């Protein structure tokens, strides 16, 4: 069991690397800090199922009670549809805990890593069983 605990983060790391290959298509992802992950909990204002990238507009209440809107960029519908997403996978009004790689600038934006619904469902940017298309073979 202890070996499994070690292996899992490595596999996760490879998957992230593979994805960065896919995501870097339309533009460089240098603006996102992929060494950092933060979790935002809030309500979806809008889900943009559009090319070249999808966006989750998430309203997040800060500790002071003020609501801040975050722009969370995801892969294209082309990439996500092939791993099982649909245009209604995320809807306005959904409560989500979204994990992102934040913008290095500190502004309210980031790159989508995964989203967790209150019922425990998790949306990732690649199907668990899908081959790592961006990984070297």
């Amino acid at each position, binding site marked *: 069991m202890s070996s499994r605990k070690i292996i899992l983060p490595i596999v996760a790391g490879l998957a992230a*690397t*593979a994805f*960065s*290959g*896919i995501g*870097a*298509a*339309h*533009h*460089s992802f*240098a*603006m*996102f*800090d992929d060494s950092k992950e933060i979790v935002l909990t809030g309500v979806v204002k*809008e889900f*943009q199922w*559009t*090319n*070249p*990238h999808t*966006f989750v*507009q998430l309203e997040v209440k800060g500790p002071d009670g003020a609501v801040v*809107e975050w*722009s969370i*960029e995801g892969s*294209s*519908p*082309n*990439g996500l*549809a*092939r791993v099982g997403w649909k245009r209604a996978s995320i809807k306005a009004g959904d409560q989500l805990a979204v994990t992102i790689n934040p*913008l*290095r*600038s500190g*502004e*309210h*934006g980031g790159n989508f890593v995964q989203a967790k619904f209150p019922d425990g469902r998790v949306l990732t940017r690649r199907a668990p069983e899908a081959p790592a*298309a*961006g*990984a*070297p*073979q």
Partner: protein
Amino acid sequence: MNASHSRVGAVRSFIGVAGCVLALGLGSLVASGAEAASAPPNWTGIWTRVGSLNFDPTIPGNKNEDFPYNAKYKEFYDRIIAAEAKGLAINDKSADCQPPGIVRMMAMVYPMEIIQTPGQFTIIAEWEGQIRRIFTDGRKHPEDPDPTYNGHSIGRWEGETLLVDTVGILGEGIINDHGAPLGEQVHVTEKWWAEGADTLKNEITVESPDALLRPIKAVKTFKRRTDIQIMEYICTQNNRNQTNAEGVTGIELKKR
């Protein structure tokens, strides 16, 4: 036993030869020009890349590649790499929805569709809906063609290998995802062949004599896919990643 079998064998051989002759005859009726000599293999279908989006797909996508740049372009590339390390992409024209250009396009971030018709080998890249028409009808390049993103391509079959030559390529293009630059002069040659029914290889050689000290070469691998379709990709639909006044890729926050 041997006598009767050899007679059957002889009959079968005759039928086989006759069939071949017939097939060749029909082939020459439908084929024309350069393709008449022998039927080329049929690679019509949808294909996806194997490996990373680097020029050499065996190099992981998060690694920068080394290219034999001259001093001027090495200085430019070094600046690009240094900026990238600080989170600033400064040679990222596709962020503004510019087509990737032939060299970077052939990394094939999304699937491609190959359509073979008499006299033409067509590649449709899902990314940016880019189309390459490779003329296999024996024509030559035009004299002094106007430069375009994907250039002017002519191809010829040598047995089961497709040899492609592309000129008239727009200058200052990009080699890979990291913004590695090309010069004003670019010439691309490709050698395509199949390994089995479902694997396609493309050995691509890029010359850019005003930027690269020698040609660079890589082999791309593609797998046949019968489980997916080509989808629409219109970059200007909702592009929130345009470059700013300093040419740095950004993100438009809070749109709409």
